[in-house]
């Protein structure tokens, strides 16, 4: 049994953060550093007729003013449809038109405001439907290669089709359909966005970036260096402490390239920081979506078909968020057993703010529709919602229509666990005569990383110093989710050192090995696997060195022991004869042999072995090993919707009891249960943090959060008007349970759990509301105003009044 695994342990960064010592981008300063400010567009769609920077340049303390006219073009984005500074036209309110570097942030802001821009407004598009109308103006007239475009439909294709949906639809005993929507929402990182760019005298770039993809960012920034005439120069990306990522760090951003351009122009380090209102207005939120879904079942409740069409308002440019449908396809094809499936998704350019990824990556959007609609089907078929899920439950060993190979699957235990813990059996009937109700929803997500790039790998370098300290360098990013905690525990356990002797190297492309990025709940899974491979190498090297060195070290230890304890009876154990690589064991920095009599001097401090190896006559050695892990998964064929995207899959179910105030439309969460198949618990304390945080985000998604726009302009760019739940809203009993299915592909059996926690929350709440008052809201968030309108529509002002304790 491992002494550390599965035991609660504070994260290694916890004390630093709690005492204000952690260095965020906001804290980092460089000698001679300048501050940047950006001038953003004042139109949703307009041609730029002229930019006059003269007034700004004359302001004291201004060091540079840049525009598309006086700097090389830097192209960026998943489809390379975006440029750092816009020259011809603006396509959204937040488009970057000019930027300033100045001696302090106030001067920079003043100068940015003093820039004069002349526009010729163009007709703009604010919803996907009108953007797809015939004759609609084009957001992009040309693609990145200069080819003319004919539509606002983005050139990305994700489809799946299996079985015979038409036949299945007509044969179904029961079928229901509905349209469900989700809003634009803010990732709401506690730490706002920012970057600091600096060139060294050889014109190599160092950038401190709030990123989740340091190595893909290095590639992007190196490509930018080429575009500004610095081909062959390198970028070093350093990731400071991050106050949250939630997907905002999956792309490189215009503001980062602007900082690079200003640093290049001025020869000084340049920092840019977003304030909260700028974070809201100028950083990409989560995509809004509309999902049209129908599902059907036979008389026994077995699902026979599922038909899903998604429309996403992408906004003006493509980010990695445009690959959302890749993950939507997972629940669409593989949550519960469904033989006949259609899935497609259209992503539409509009003049709204462009969207990017957020935790869950399309899965919460799709699960919202799927699990709400499944309750509608259960009602139509007269089957209990829990029962219909049990009937269609996924099983280990199954291959789903998309070709996902299910290894371990604890979904049945999750569903049944929620039922038990929520008291499902005692649940009342349906209808509107009471205010309290219960609901549940499940989820499936990639649990063994999600391959959306040709490499899905993680590297780890382990190094032991002369004193027995273990340094772990991983390319994965800890943005607050606890990756470093998982690495610390796994490193201590797998190498055999005290966790307090494990140090995680700051994420830096110049010292850490390559990693595709921290997304898809993959950090602990992939870096953990790489770490276990490296640990194996490390132990092999240590034990090999020990064959020669251990006998003498024991002899020394024996002598000093006897000096200190002269009365010790002689032990007749021939350790020299017992030495063999497979007999060594290393625990808590102590090296010893297996199956020996309990003789104290047989335990050697690891540091002694390392130093003996270091100073060995005739050539020493060091203990540094690396490993590179790429999970056994496939890059799916997206046009066909086929491929085993992940090495394993995480399942879970949430159940919730709500109380609805039918006078005001308020929804109060009375209790919540989450049962999650996590494979294996590494650190219960960090895991709890992940799930509680995710559920809070899920509750926000369900009930409160929404970026409100009017003709492309964001109206609520602050936490006064953009509501996330406070401690008061999540102050309900939260019962968390884990199913440990011991996933063979996972490090110690663990699966990824970063995103699953928020995925089923919204539909579970909506299903509970339906159970309570017989009304289904299909648009998130379920605000009191919306719910009340739905109640009035359903009951025509004769809403049953409060009936406390009706259950």
């Amino acid at each position, binding site marked *: 049994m491992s002494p550390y695994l599965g035991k609660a342990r504070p994260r290694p960064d916890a004390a630093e953060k709690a005492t204000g010592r952690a260095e965020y981008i906001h804290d980092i300063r460089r000698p001679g550093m300048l501050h940047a400010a950006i001038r953003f567009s004042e139109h949703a769609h307009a041609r730029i007729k002229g930019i006059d920077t003269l007034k700004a340049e004359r302001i004291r303390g201004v060091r540079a003013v840049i525009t598309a006219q006086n700097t090389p073009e830097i192209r960026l984005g998943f489809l390379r449809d975006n440029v750092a500074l816009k020259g011809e036209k603006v396509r959204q309110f937040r488009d970057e038109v000019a930027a300033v570097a100045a001696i302090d942030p106030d001067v920079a802001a003043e100068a940015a405001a003093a820039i004069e821009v002349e526009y010729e407004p163009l007709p703009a598009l604010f919803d996907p439907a009108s953007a797809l109308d015939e004759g609609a103006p084009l957001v992009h007239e040309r693609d990145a290669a200069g080819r003319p475009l004919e539509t606002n439909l983005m050139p990305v294709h994700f489809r799946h089709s299996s079985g015979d949906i038409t036949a299945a639809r007509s044969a179904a005993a029961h079928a229901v359909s509905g349209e469900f929507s989700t809003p634009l929402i803010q990732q709401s990182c506690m730490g706002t966005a920012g970057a600091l760019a600096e060139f060294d005298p050889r014109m190599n770039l160092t950038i401190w970036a709030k990123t989740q993809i340091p190595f893909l960012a290095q590639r992007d920034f190196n490509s930018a260096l080429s575009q500004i005439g610095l081909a062959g120069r390198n970028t070093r990306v350093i990731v400071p402490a991050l106050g949250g990522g939630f997907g905002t760090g999956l792309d490189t951003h215009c503001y980062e390239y602007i900082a690079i351009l200003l640093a290049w122009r001025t020869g000084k380090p340049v920092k840019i920081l977003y304030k909260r209102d700028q974070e809201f207005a100028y950083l990409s939120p989560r995509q809004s979506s509309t999902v049209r879904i129908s599902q059907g079942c036979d008389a026994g409740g077995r699902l026979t078909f599922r038909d899903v069409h998604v429309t996403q308002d992408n906004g003006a440019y493509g980010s990695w968020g445009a690959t959302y449908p890749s993950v939507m396809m997972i629940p669409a094809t593989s949550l519960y057993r469904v033989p006949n499936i259609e899935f497609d998704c259209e992503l539409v350019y509009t003049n709204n703010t462009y969207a990017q990824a957020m935790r869950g990556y399309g899965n919460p959007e799709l699960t919202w529709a799927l699990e709400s609609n499944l309750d509608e089907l259960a009602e139509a078929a007269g089957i209990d919602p829990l029962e219909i899920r049990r009937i269609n439950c996924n099983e280990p060993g199954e291959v789903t229509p998309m070709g996902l190979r299910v290894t371990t699957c604890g979904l049945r235990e999750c569903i049944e666990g929620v039922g038990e813990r929520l008291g499902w059996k005692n649940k009342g009937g349906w209808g509107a005569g009471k205010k309290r109700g219960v609901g549940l929803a499940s989820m499936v997500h990639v649990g063994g990383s999600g391959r959306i790039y040709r490499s899905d790998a993680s590297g780890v370098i382990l190094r032991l110093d002369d004193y027995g300290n273990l340094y772990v360098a991983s390319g994965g990013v800890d943005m607050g989710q606890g990756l470093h905690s998982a690495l610390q525990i796994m490193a201590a356990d797998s190498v055999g050192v005290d966790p307090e002797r494990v140090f995680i190297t700051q994420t830096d492309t110049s010292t850490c090995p390559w990693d595709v990025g921290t997304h898809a709940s993959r950090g602990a899974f992939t870096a953990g696997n790489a770490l276990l491979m490296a640990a194996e190498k490390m132990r092999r090297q240590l034990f090999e060195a020990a064959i020669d060195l251990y006998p003498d070290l024991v002899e020394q230890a024996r002598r000093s022991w006897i000096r200190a304890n002269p009365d010790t009876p002689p032990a007749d154990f021939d350790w020299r004869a017992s030495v063999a690589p497979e007999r060594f064991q290393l625990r808590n920095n102590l090296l010893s042999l297996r199956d020996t009599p309990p003789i104290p001097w047989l335990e050697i401090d690891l540091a002694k072995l390392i130093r003996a190896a270091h100073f060995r006559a005739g050539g020493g050695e060091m203990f540094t090993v690396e490993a590179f892990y790429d999970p056994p998964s496939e890059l799916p064929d997206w046009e066909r919707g086929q491929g085993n995207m992940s090495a394993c899959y995480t399942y879970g179910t949430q159940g919730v009891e709500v109380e609805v105030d039918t006078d005001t439309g308020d929804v109060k969460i009375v209790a919540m249960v989450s049962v999650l198949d996590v494979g294996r618990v590494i650190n219960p304390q960090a895991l709890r943090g992940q799930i509680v945080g995710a559920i809070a985000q899920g509750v926000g998604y369900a009930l409160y959060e929404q970026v409100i726009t009017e003709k492309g302009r964001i109206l609520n760019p602050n936490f006064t008007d953009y*509501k996330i739940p406070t401690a*008061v809203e999540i102050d309900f009993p939260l019962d968390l349970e884990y199913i440990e299915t011991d996933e063979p592909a996972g490090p110690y059996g663990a699966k990824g759990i970063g995103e699953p926690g928020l995925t089923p929350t919204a539909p579970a709440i909506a299903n509970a509301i339906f159970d309570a008052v017989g009304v289904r809201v299909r648009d998130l968030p379920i605000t009191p*105003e919306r719910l009340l309108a739905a109640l009035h529509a359903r009951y025509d002002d004769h809403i049953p009044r409060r009936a406390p304790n009706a259950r």
Partner: protein
Amino acid sequence: MSSYHRPPSVAEALRLKRELPGSSFIAGGTDLLVQMKDRVRQPTALISIRHLSELTRIETDGGARLGAATPLSDLADDSALMTGWPILGEALRDFASVQIRGSATIGGNLCNGSPAADAAPALIVLGARVRIAGLDGERLLPVEQLFEAPGRTRVREEELLVSIELDPPLPSGHGVFLKKMRTAMDVSLASIASLALLRDGRLEEIRLAAGSVAPVPMRLHETEKVLRDRPLTPERIAEARRVARDEVRPITDIRAGADYRRHIVGVFVQRALEATLEKGDR
């Protein structure tokens, strides 16, 4: 902002205010600093008043006199005040957070002039008056008449609100304060205060006021008329709910629609009156 002042007395504060055009008084700063950060207001100088003992005293002897710069948490901790005028305690209970209540002052809440000021409806139904000092003397004004427009009160540029004065509590009056927020720590989207005196099933006195549903916190005179000197019955309550809904003048903004706000005012009036009915004569 070029200077920050900490005058030794109210008189000196008033003199400084005249001397420094474009300056602002600052009490807890929980409204003003937010506005300054958003550049909605850019005072040339700040004149602090929160340290002035003349402005931070709570006196209760029959009636009450609350120094304008008293932090809300001090008011909530004053047991004589909370026992005599419990509706004030209700209005302060869900007001912001512990941290904000430690800084925010009662005078600042009123002088900021927000239609959502949570202290206003309660003070209006209590019939409170404010004492306003200028360089040439003092005057009294009912809180009900203090608000002019969103962000504007009848405290003039060179005047200081020094205290809030309360009459002795209505014997056996029943006070209720209700507010609707999207989440905790929110600007209310509708609130009501009700002070009722029920005797032998009749409402001998009823005062109702609402916040966030008109350009200023407003008294619900029409609704009161339906109720005053009449027996308090479920039918009467239903009628009051309807009248209140029609009487308020809310707008639609990003926090809520006008219709929803009207609806909530009606629900709250009903709930307040039902609570009074349930409590009964005493």
